[in-house]
């Protein structure tokens, strides 16, 4: 199982029937592929849709039905469409139960930086700041490290996405939560020891008495 699949499968286990879920681009998008069939969630696309379905078959795509990246999607029975004011009313108003976003850095207190690398092109924050500020639960799904450097850092050096802290980080090697506002190792990826995770994590981690392996 590759790193992205581990992350996608583990995040999917956080979803419950009835949840309204918003998935960011990149790894978060994969989560939809791993939702167990007995769990019925609503996926929101922030361009104005609840009830996103899979990519339509060849020849069935409709030009006015796309995801937030402009790619064709389908809509499940019971879907609803709305304008952008409603879409972000849902997001900022706490109606999104879970948002899953990519990350550049998450720090020891749960702050997220995911929209800007100073000195590089700034494409804009899109809906990320609203999602992190407003969703009931924020899960970051990302590789644990980039080019050998831990993305779980002591303190974010990149510009923050929100002053609101996130709830959970799922990486290819660990699940980290923030009880009492401190990064805490909740689970390790199959086959990895606590010490191995700590060794590749810049932030200091609180280590509970028992740290189970991820079930994926």
């Amino acid at each position, binding site marked *: 199982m590759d790193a992205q699949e581990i992350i996608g499968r583990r995040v999917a286990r956080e979803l419950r029937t009835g949840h309204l879920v918003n998935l960011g681009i990149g790894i978060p998008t994969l989560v939809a592929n791993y939702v167990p069939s007995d769990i019925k969630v609503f996926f929101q696309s922030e*361009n104005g*849709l609840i009830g996103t379905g899979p990519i339509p078959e060849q020849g069935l795509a409709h030009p006015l039905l*796309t995801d937030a990246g402009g790619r064709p999607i389908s809509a499940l029975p019971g879907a609803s*469409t709305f*304008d*952008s004011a409603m879409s972000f009313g849902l997001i900022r108003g706490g109606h999104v139960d879970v948002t899953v976003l990519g990350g550049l850095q998450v720090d020891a207190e749960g702050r997220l930086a995911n929209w800007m690398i100073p000195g590089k092109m700034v494409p804009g*924050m899109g*809906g990320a700041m*609203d999602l992190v500020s407003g969703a009931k639960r924020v899960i970051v799904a990302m590789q644990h490290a980039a080019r050998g450097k831990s993305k779980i850092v002591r303190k974010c050096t990149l510009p923050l996405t929100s*002053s609101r802290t996130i709830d959970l980080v799922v990486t290819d090697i660990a699940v980290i939560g923030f009880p009492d506002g401190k990064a805490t190792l909740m689970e390790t990826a199959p086959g990895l020891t606590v010490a191995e995770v700590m060794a590749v994590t810049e932030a200091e981690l609180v280590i509970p008495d028992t740290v189970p392996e991820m079930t994926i």
Partner: protein
Amino acid sequence: MKAISVEEAVAKIPAGASIMVGGFMGVGTPERLLDEVVRQHKTGLALISNDAAIPGKGIGKLFDAGLVSSLTASHIGLNPKAQQQMLANQIAVDLIPQGTLVERIRAGGCGLGGVLTPTGVGTTVAEGKRQIEIDGKAFLLETALRAQFALVHAFLADYLGNLSYALTARNFNPVIAMAADTVIVTAEHIVPVGVIAPDHVVTPAPLVDYLIANE
């Protein structure tokens, strides 16, 4: 509401005008109006839109033609031309959170001076903005946004100007239709009065100034 040709409609937009354009990554954008804006070479536009789409599509065409002098949007990540023009200081770009953007436009359309949003507190977005505390929670004061023109794309428009939208092509269209001095609309289908049931009208007729007639 007046039905006019696309040439007449765009002729009303002066160079340097502020315009809001509907659409989200090119979906739900009034392409015929933008094509004509390019043809009439309306320069120096102050553009307000969700994004910059991609080259060759939707709002992207305005960047292809070099017509934009300033852009207020939530992201331009998928349009390299808009990015190049920003880096070359040919256009001034104000990037703001998407929810804040749409709420500022809604405020402009609904006669509100602004709204208080938690989005952006404690980030670079807060710089230069008033921060207001309510019951111990911090909010940014984000002010209303309006434009001279709104270019709207609807799915159905009836002879009076009532509009409805389809699927994810709704996005910013009904919001900008309230926030501009002059509202110009293209529709996929122009239909007789009554085809759109009262409960399904999203933009009521009195908001529309010009509907682009079929050729």
